């Protein structure tokens, strides 16, 4: 029986990054992915003959430091910027904000001159806050109650960065972290349309409306990982990030196995010693890292009898309630969006005309219903990457909120809803659809083991962030089971394809190993 230094269960960007870093450090590493494709839910799937589309997350970028360390460019990673964001408005109006802030302010000046004057200052404030977050994301979250010396040093560094912003900005950034997106945007802007569009990134992937406290944090999270208003994907689709990471990991000697689902972690006397596959095969390892969320890890991979009742209770209390449905449409030709310039079609198209619209889209989800007026984002990835569809044909990839997990929604209804809403802006859309794919929260759970279909491993709220993610007291990638670690979106810094959780987890594991070696 072969034995590994570390076995990693799951294959998100974080899992692959952890694999690559550990292999690079000389470990013998094996990664196991239950599905046929490395990447799990971060996959670009052929959903119809010749048409490929992202299944789950459909934008994001790997952390630049990780890309450098692992030379991902050499492994074929090529980023595609999706750098405009268009608001689709009633009566076939629209406006498009480019990434360049002065150019964006010029656009805003056309309908809200006062807002245009404040746009640059607003974005600079968001920069300060998201820079702070980025610093916090680059390391293991410090324990806040009684910090160790290392934790205290990290806290001091963050406090020092904040203090360096100056007295006024320090307070402004602090406020931002706890505010609702509504409160924030009301402070800065007058235009309902502008506020709606800017709030969309604050509720993306979250089962909350923009009136909810802490939604600004979700906005900052997206900005910090480079997936805010200016988005990116990879040539070949989001799955190409996984492929590049996989290639990098393999180049350092890691083994990657698809179609190899772990049934459980093997634990004896509170220490993880390996994994057992669904086939019954047992693989021994010194350490095991779970890429799964905390509920999956601590109820499916590790039985709750192995854990303390208090811990099990904390696991039960994690909020998931995924509410993102994905719809991919294979199109005969490029649809025309009335009033939207052709170059804007390559960016993100958003239906979020006001704060109240977004909040109302969420209202039903509280009671388990889907709104007839959902928050929708869409992109046409084939415009920048012709490899994703047969010549002349296109893919429209739709992100729809809120389709709450707890309601067993009919996917057909979601498909019709997405097409109906988008055809208000693109009247020829229904006639162009050749094939379609709908992925509901329940599908994400069943196919990829994501609890309640949550794409971010648990809601990105303040109560589940930093030293509280995924569980208070276990935010430093370690678990109550010795030699069992976590590295997925469930851990700090949360959802997305940055890979940071994997790098942080690998660092913690390596520091434990060197400690063990000294022992």
């Amino acid at each position: 029986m072969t034995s590994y230094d570390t076995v990693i269960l799951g294959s998100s960007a974080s899992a692959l990054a952890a694999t690559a870093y550990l292999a690079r450090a000389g470990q013998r590493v094996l990664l196991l992915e239950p599905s046929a494709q490395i990447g799990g839910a971060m996959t670009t799937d052929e959903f119809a003959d010749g048409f490929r589309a992202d299944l789950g997350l459909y934008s994001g970028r790997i952390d630049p430091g990780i890309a450098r360390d692992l030379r991902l460019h050499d492994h074929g990673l090529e980023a595609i910027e999706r750098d405009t964001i268009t608001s689709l408005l009633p009566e076939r109006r629209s406006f498009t904000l480019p990434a360049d802030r002065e150019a964006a302010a010029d656009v805003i000046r056309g309908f809200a001159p006062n807002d245009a004057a404040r746009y640059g200052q607003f974005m600079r404030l968001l920069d300060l806050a998201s820079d702070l977050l980025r610093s916090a994301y680059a390391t293991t979250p410090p324990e806040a109650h009684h910090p160790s010396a290392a934790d205290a040093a990290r806290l001091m560094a963050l406090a020092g960065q904040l203090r360096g912003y100056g007295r006024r900005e320090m307070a402004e950034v602090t406020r931002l972290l706890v505010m609702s997106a509504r409160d924030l945007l009301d402070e800065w802007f007058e235009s309902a349309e502008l506020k709606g569009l800017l709030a969309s990134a604050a509720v993306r992937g979250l089962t909350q409306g923009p009136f909810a406290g802490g939604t600004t944090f979700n906005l900052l999270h997206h900005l910090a990982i480079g997936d805010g208003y200016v988005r990116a994907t990879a040539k070949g689709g989001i799955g190409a990030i996984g492929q590049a990471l996989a290639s990098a990991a393999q180049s350092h000697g890691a083994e990657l196995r698809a179609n190899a689902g772990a049934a459980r972690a093997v634990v004896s006397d509170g220490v993880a010693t390996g994994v057992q596959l669904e086939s019954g095969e047992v693989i021994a390892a010194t350490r095991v890292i779970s890429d799964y969320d905390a509920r999956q890890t601590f109820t499916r991979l590790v039985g709750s009898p192995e854990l303390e009742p208090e811990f099990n209770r904390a696991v039960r209390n994690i909020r998931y309630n995924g509410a993102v449905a994905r719809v991919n449409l294979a199109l005969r030709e490029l649809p025309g969006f009335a009033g939207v310039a052709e170059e804007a079609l390559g960016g993100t198209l958003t239906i979020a005309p006001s704060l109240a619209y977004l909040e109302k889209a969420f209202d039903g989800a509280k009671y388990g219903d889907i709104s007839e007026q959902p928050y929708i984002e869409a992109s046409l990835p084939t415009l920048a990457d012709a490899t994703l569809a047969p010549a002349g044909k296109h893919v429209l990839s739709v992100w729809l909120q809120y389709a709450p997990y707890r309601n067993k929604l009919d996917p057909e209804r979601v498909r019709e809803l997405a097409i109906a809403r988008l055809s208000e802006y693109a009247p020829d859309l229904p006639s162009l659809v050749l094939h379609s794919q709908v992925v509901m929260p329940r599908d994400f759970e069943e196919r990829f083991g994501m609890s309640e279909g949550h794409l971010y491993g648990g809601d990105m709220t303040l109560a589940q962030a930093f030293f509280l993610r995924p569980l208070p007291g276990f935010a430093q990638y370690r678990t109550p089971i010795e030699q069992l670690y976590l590295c997925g979106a469930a851990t700090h810094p949360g959802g997305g394809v940055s890979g940071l959780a994997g790098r942080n987890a690998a660092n913690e594991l390596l520091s434990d190993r060197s400690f063990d070696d000294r022992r």
Partner: protein
Amino acid sequence: MNNHRYDAIVIGGGHNGLVNAAYLAKAGKHVLVLERRHTVGGATITEEIYPGFKYLIASYLISLLRPEVIQELELARHGLEIMPLESTYVPLPNGNYLADWPDHDATRHEIERHSKRDAEAYEEYSRTMRRLALAVRPLLSMIPPDPSSLSVKDLETMARVRGVLGAMRRDDFYLLARLMTMSAADFLDEWFESTALKGTKSTSGIIGTFLGPRSPGSGYVLLHHYLGEVDGVFRAWGFARGGTGALSQAIAGAAREAGVEIQVNAPVAQVIVKNGAATGVALENGDEYHADIVVSNADAKRTFLKLVETKHLPDEFVHDVKRLRISSPACKVNLALDGLPEFTSLPKGLTALLRGSIEIAPSVDYLEQAYDDAKYGGWARKPFMDALIPSLIDPGMAPPGKHVMSMFVQYASSDLEGGWNEEKKAQFLDVVIDTLAEYAPNLKDIILHKHIMTPWDIENIIGITSGHIFHGELALQQIFFLRPSPQWSNYRTPIRNLYMCGSSTHPGGCITGAPGRNAALAILEDRP
């Protein structure tokens, strides 16, 4: 033109203004309180709007009043008598009910009727909330530090805050960190399964707050309301004999005894500022009063956008005050009744429950729906209510055989679409009465007189911006060292010798007396 000189002038005779004046006078200052209305108390008043019936037109219960205020001002000697209000009765639409008794075991037994598991959890929940409240209570009487400052005093206070948090049990610290940003409903879901119990327990997270029980941030408000229930002096919510107005009278008594002059019918038009320093106030009738310091009990918006000319203030500060969120969802309804309402779900032998709170809060979804109705500028079609019948506790509140009912009602937006007017007030009052009559069908037959204070009325009559009972929402971006504005949370203002002592300052709303007392401590630091 009159000319008068004092050490300190307090603008507004609300309970915090009176507390502040009393503390300053006890420290030897010559203090004048100027109150706009015919009586002191601000929102802490009892009024006989319908002859013979005493209405609690604004605040109605006392629980968070700081024990040090009661003791140091000897309020009992000045006539304050608190009668415990210990039970809660929650009628349910299905004809059942949930009760909370003064006796812990009785409550446990009652909860068992709804869920055995919840009865168990209730024990631990009560202990945990008590521990959390005790742990963070020291923060209430603290002058908030400025974390951006490197002054010795601020660094010391920061160390004290860290000390308070560091002294907590680890699991309590984590719970507190989560509760601060969670929704009340999510928090209660972690403890309980019974719909009715979660409904009534979640109301502490929404009182006075434009949030639903499922809104993140309501967890903090829940904690805020728990802080009073552990004071030792009161075990629970209390009712002042004579209504909350009697509390104001007691504080005014203590203030007068210490030498405070109180003038009613004396509306202040402006704070007089010379060379960046407050030197006194001018009344609407042109009279001027001069003092070394001026303290405003008014909310921050009224103080800095109406009473002070903005040219005296830094732009940044004016910006901060303008952006302070102050939307209010809260109304007060008072009814004069010819008899007692008969609740269909109340068992015959349990009429004692009418002496406590009567809550229309059957479930979290009911409350959330009420919030959803109002949050876009409307009002709840089925409102949340926290009612009591003061005349059952204190017979002096109504003529013999008759009763008065006080109802705190949410949600009706201060930013009602199209604005409030008399017709809309009457419509919403009907909604309130119709809703309550579903639980007590005889209600409409026994109403002698009805009265509503919408946020619009609270603003017009009492003078609080948007009628917000907390002088600004208890949102996380405007509490502690951020309330009402970063760097100005220590009761001082950008204008020298002008201070704040109202609920726009730490620790915020409710009848606590803490802003008044803390502000006096800050003033006495500057001018011993």
